[in-house]
């Protein structure tokens, strides 16, 4: 059987029913950009609050009761368990409802689902993070994870872009990373404004200019589909092999556990076998299915 065995991931099932969400409470809301907000949440159940664990790259199915469920990755790092965070871009029914919620509101959470970034394989490697827009959310979990274990990893390059300065998410993190001597932080926008003194240019172009070394390196890409599609060829041109390119994908998902059918790329289900893939795994389908 080609698909990954994920039976060991069966943790934290509510009453044995995988579709039953845990109740969680919104503890803090940060308006990141006009369309994106970060929500800090934690479980109502004391025991779960203590025991809950996850890995960078995993996601959950978040419910707004009466509206529906949607998948979002956990954007905080497992190394900082004082809080759980996820980020939501206003786009459809559930995301709009999440944007209407206030602190104290109850939501549902199922998860964590999916695989995670392969930390063991990233050890001692030089890491090149390439992110766009809200695509920084899953990378952010890994970036903090790596920074909190800084001596285990090589150089860290972060290339992050958004449409405009106002669309840059996690500005507070960008500042911190920028000041961190162990991190090479490059921020870019598609279009600048009066106050913008940084780089202007699309993420793939900037990546090409920055041209990070490929030796002992792994590139981790996340952003809107169109950015991902244009980033892979640039990485290839720079000399990254398909095995050296990681991405985390977003699809329409309903169940989150490989049953409802809609998130497949070839025989792989993004919810079940992903969301983290190497380019080698999906390249056969990437041009036509993603």
């Amino acid at each position, binding site marked *: 059987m080609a698909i990954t065995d994920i039976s060991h991931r069966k943790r934290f099932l509510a009453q044995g029913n995988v579709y039953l969400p845990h109740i969680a409470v919104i503890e803090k809301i940060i308006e990141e950009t006009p369309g994106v907000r970060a929500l800090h949440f934690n479980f109502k159940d004391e025991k779960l609050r203590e025991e809950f664990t996850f890995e960078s790259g995993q996601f959950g199915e978040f419910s707004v009761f*009466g509206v529906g469920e949607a998948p979002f990755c956990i954007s905080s790092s497992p190394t900082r368990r004082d809080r759980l965070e996820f980020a939501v871009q206003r786009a459809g029914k559930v995301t709009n409802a999440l944007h209407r919620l206030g602190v104290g509101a109850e939501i549902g959470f199922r998860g964590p689902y999916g695989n995670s970034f392969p930390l063991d394989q990233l050890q001692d490697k030089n890491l090149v993070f390439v992110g766009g827009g809200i695509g920084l959310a899953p990378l952010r979990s890994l970036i903090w994870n790596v920074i909190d274990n800084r001596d285990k990893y090589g150089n860290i390059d972060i290339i992050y872009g958004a449409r405009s300065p106002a669309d840059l998410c996690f500005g507070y993190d960008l500042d911190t990373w920028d000041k961190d001597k162990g991190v090479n932080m490059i921020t870019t926008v598609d279009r600048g404004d009066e106050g913008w003194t940084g780089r202007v240019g699309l993420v793939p172009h900037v990546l090409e200019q920055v041209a990070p070394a490929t030796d002992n390196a792994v590139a981790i890409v996340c952003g809107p589909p169109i950015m991902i599609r244009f980033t892979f060829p640039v990485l290839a041109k720079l000399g990254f092999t398909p095995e050296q390119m990681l991405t985390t994908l977003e699809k329409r998902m309903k169940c989150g556990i490989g049953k409802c059918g809609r998130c497949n790329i070839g025989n792989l289900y993004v919810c079940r076998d992903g969301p983290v893939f190497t380019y080698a795994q999906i390249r056969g389908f990437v041009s036509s299915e993603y």
Partner: protein
Amino acid sequence: MRLINNSKKVNKRKIGKLLSQWSEEFTVFVPSKENGVVMMARWDGTDTSFLDWYRNTVLPPKAHFLPPMEEMFRFQKDKGGYQLEQPASDGQKQLIFAIHSCDANALAILDMTFKDAYEDPYYLSRRKNKLLVGLGCTNPYDSCFCTSLGSDPFDAANVDLMLTDIGDEFLIEGVTDAGKQLVAQTSGLEEATEAEDARAKEVKEASYHKVTRRIDTGDIGSKLLSCFEDEDYWEKVAAKCISCGICTLLCPTCYCFDISDELVKQQGTRFRCWDSCAFPIYTKMPMENPREEKWRRVRQKVCHKYEFYPMNFGIIACTGCGRCIRLCPVNWDITQALNSLPAKI
């Protein structure tokens, strides 16, 4: 073909009695017509006229395990926040009478998905309490092609007992332990004679040859892989598809579902219902849709059944029941699509 010997028999006129007997232990479902639509429905306790007209159902028996819609749980908000309430599982024993091999095999295929890693409690609890009484198919439709999928009209691999129509009598053979046990505790069955066993063999042989539609499944997966990117081919194949959900919703092996919430007067329900990869919104995301074009959706349907499912579970997710062909409003025919795959090196 799996043949079982030492069978019992029952006269067709006594089927009513047999079903009544079984009704004491089980809720019995038999082929019935709801305004002309054939489906397995609760037996009314008397009518056995389906023996005269039954060929196969329109609504596949998967509907008994993965219903067109079901309540997953209810939720209500009170002072303490949201309270969730799961539907009580009925635990009642049920028996589906006269299921054909294609549909029983389809359940075994569905099992793989619903048992995989995370178990699906709704499907599996329904699966546990149902006994499948197979009826060998002696009159397959011209759209049937089960023999191309390693099966045949009398395949007993996934039923609990198997019935064979030998004219005035049905031969009854227990297949699983539960099936054998039921045969043993059923009164009024007679021993079948050797001649009748021989007759059954003839019926099976004849039925096998009545299935004439064929596909070559030999290296179908690699063929599909090699022409996955052949846009011209898929566009041509998909041209007449109207993107309705008939072939998928009524497919006994299709399991895709949608989950949605409803809130009426503070009482909330989370539903799940059948969904189809033929619908554009099935994969639609706010910014883009990976399967906006019709040919991509048709390709997904074909490849999922014949390429991806075998990659994941080692079995083709199609049992050749032919529903997708005979119910299609435009006669889109999966066997034609598979048989006309361009040869690639």
